[in-house]
């Protein structure tokens, strides 16, 4: 196992290297950081010397060779912690990125903690009585959950719990945006949780639908397998068959799905965060993108990429833990 982990980690390095280089080139083409800088600093833009200095400092040389050299300038700065400052406002990138990352992880983990237990429970609940009313109900609910996109569910929930409720009773039942009420200062986990209820529900809806469908299909597959039939014929109780044998094997594909989901969460909540004004990675990305802020976008992309690679590794490890037949070495 250790060898496997080391090997995968070593592979992650060239993977990150290649991905970041491709992303670097794509972002430079898409955002044109020199033009963004010139737009943001019109007086500096009139001074060729200062513009040339900006090019040198940030490695923004033209041509493929320039991109390669520029990538290594960026990489060196990134690895040594000497990050380029943002184009808009010339501020350090990490402080705001760190806050956004923590907020998104907080939201993502809460959503996972809600959606996985509920989704798996519903899947098991449906699989135990296939074709019956409960199965139909879960399947129908899952299809609806899949179909309702986050920006739809978010707006519906905001309208109901915020706007409409306030019209009926004078005050909204749940807050509809932000992380704290306006004017609040300091850390207050209880208040924060209240503000996260609607975003967590929105993020969880599709995940619950997804997990319930996968769990149902996987468990049905296992329940109909030969080895479970054999186990039952040996007189093992149905409860033991389910808990000890069926669920463990049915979880294998679910773990892969969950790991990939969690890995993608870091960058995948853009719509939900935007609708709820939630100060996370999604909003950070949207702001950086609208400013064409290359120095802010690159670290964001690196974190997203690293997250996906890391959670893929964790998925493989969990896979091995759940199914000893899989020989990773």
């Amino acid at each position, binding site marked *: 196992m250790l060898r496997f982990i080391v090997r995968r980690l070593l592979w992650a390095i060239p993977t990150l290297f290649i991905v970041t280089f491709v992303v670097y080139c794509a972002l430079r083409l898409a955002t044109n950081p020199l033009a963004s800088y*010139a*737009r*943001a*600093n*019109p*007086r*500096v*833009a*009139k001074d060729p010397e*200062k513009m040339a200095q900006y090019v040198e400092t940030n490695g923004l040389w033209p041509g493929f060779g320039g991109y390669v050299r520029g990538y290594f300038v960026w990489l060196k700065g990134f690895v040594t912690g000497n990050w380029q400052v*943002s184009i*808009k*406002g*010339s*501020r350090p990138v990490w402080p*705001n990125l760190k*806050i956004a990352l923590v907020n998104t992880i907080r939201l993502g983990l809460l959503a996972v903690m809600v959606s996985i237990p509920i989704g798996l429970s519903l899947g098991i609940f449906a699989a135990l009585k296939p074709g019956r009313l409960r199965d139909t109900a879960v399947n129908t609910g899952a299809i609806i959950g899949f179909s309702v996109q986050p920006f739809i569910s978010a707006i519906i929930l*905001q*309208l109901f719990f*915020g*706007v409409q*409720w*306030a*019209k009926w009773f004078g*005050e*909204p039942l749940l*807050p*509809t*945006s*932000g*992380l*704290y*009420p*306006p*004017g609040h*200062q300091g850390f207050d986990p209880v208040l924060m949780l209240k503000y996260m209820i609607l975003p967590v529900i929105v993020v969880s809806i599709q995940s619950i639908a997804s997990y319930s469908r996968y769990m149902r299909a996987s468990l049905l597959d296992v329940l109909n397998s030969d080895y479970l039939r054999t186990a039952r014929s040996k007189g093992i109780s149905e409860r033991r068959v389910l808990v000890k044998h069926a669920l463990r094997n049915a979880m294998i594909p679910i773990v892969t799905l969950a790991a990939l989901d969690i890995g993608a969460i870091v960058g995948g909540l853009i719509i939900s965060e*935007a*609708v709820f*004004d939630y*100060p996370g990675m999604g909003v950070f990305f949207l*702001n950086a993108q*609208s*400013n064409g802020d290359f120095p802010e976008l690159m670290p964001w992309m690196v974190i997203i990429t690293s997250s996906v690679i890391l959670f893929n590794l964790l998925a493989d490890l969990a896979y091995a833990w759940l199914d000893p037949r899989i020989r990773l070495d």
Partner: protein
Amino acid sequence: MRTSNSSKFAALAVGLALVVAACGSDSSSSPTTAGATETTGGTETTAGSETTAGGSDTTAAAETPAMTITYNINDKAVWEDGSPITADDFICTFDATMNTVGSLSTSGYDQIISVEQGENDHQVVATFKTVYAPYRGLFGGLIKKAAVADCNDISGDFQTDFPFSNRPYKLESWDANQEILVPNENYWGDDKAVVQKVVMVPKADAETEIASLLSSEVDFIYPQYSPETADAVKGDSNVKVSIQFGGDYEGLYFQQNDGPFADATFRQAFAQSIDVEGLMAQVYEPIVAGAKQLTCGPIVPGRYCDETTFQNTYDPAAAEKLMTDAGWAKDGNGYWAKDGADAPEIRWMINTGNTRRENTQAFLIPLMQAAGFNVVADNCEAECVFQKRLPAMDYDLGMYISTAPPDPAYLTGSFTCDQVPSDANNQAGQNSQGWCNEEASALLEKADATIDLDERAGYIKDAIKMMREDWVMLPTFQFPKSGVYRTDKVGGPVEDELNNYAAFINFNQWTDVDGDGQIVIGAEQWPGCLNPITECANSSWYVWTVSFPLTMGVYDTTNDGEYKLTPLMADEPVVEIL
């Protein structure tokens, strides 16, 4: 809306001279200074003013003085820590504006040879190398010398803090999620802060703002007016919409540097084929009942407006004759063509998603095609329009909102020849119509050097007449500003300053109706940092939420588009022409 750089600049004028900027983004509401402010949810630019200048150079001292202004500072005027406001703060403001790398605009300041202490530290003398008529826009917001390490470079200051104030409120905290203002106990004026806390929070767009208002999360919003806004809130008896007509105006602009409108005959015929009255009835009447065409030009009614200038522009018969006389003839598709060439295609650019402008295209394009002009919609996102294509003059016909500051100097930044983007100005000029009329440029520049207001107005009106003669643009509508607020949360003179260039600047006099101890204002755009003279300040919402509420200068703007002396000054500045 697009606010052209000049517009922004006007803000600048008002701001640092008001610190503002040259172009920004506004959205719906947000104009900054003069120019085109458009928005949409996105970005705006400004029209106008940025200009030239270069830093306060050492050669300036050798120039011949043409004008001096003597400012007498009120003895009672102090900063938030009780320290007196002195000539040093004026000098620091001037140095920072001129010398800081990344200073957005030096317009006006670049006409100053020196800023020095006068007879005592409460007197300031600014010496100009030219007669500078828009001087009221200078020193619109002071920088406290003691708050910065080096007045010649404040680019590294004010990242997340704005550590001084000479207004009724001072900044307690600011981050990406909110700004909190608390009373400035040392404020010496009569208009002291009423409520113990004012909170400003970012809202992504007008829809989010309205939802926040309806759910009582915020007490006041300032969106660009639309009938949808009124519809969205009309079911709530505690929400009031106030509509007023201020400095925002919309227009059609003809890019004539190259493309089909470089041909003056073609341009005139096209402009005369636009049924503006039909447009008013079809597009603007549903927005505001009784909507009338703006006929001043790129300016709003007032001292500098001649309302006859753009009257009766629609004359299809004259357009037809003009084209025919010039040798144009309609081709097999019914489009005007000449000399065997294909009919020129006219690319009409608006920002995608702006329903009003899309409706305008849907209404006018078939009419213009029927008149023989091959017009096609060529739209893109707001950022693409205002940050990229307008500055690059990559369009033929444009449509956007601009915001006029109280002083018409923004016209010089937006319409003079040297502001046409070119290598000479590193493509940074703000004249994105590409119009160059030397005589009009000279008039606008002369206006900026004329102190007498009536004489100045004459020059401005004459220059605008030349815009009509050259068919630079067609003004369409003076666009309303709107303030929307909860009457169960906030009271007092909420509606009194909505037209003001400084927007809701009088919030220090608003009252807390529900007794929660604070007023919450929703902001459509959020500054990335707080530096008052660098790119941070490049938006209307920056000046509305940060620099206007915290820094007072020599003059404030008024709700009717004039300047008034602030409590900072002991008396009216003395202008002396040398």
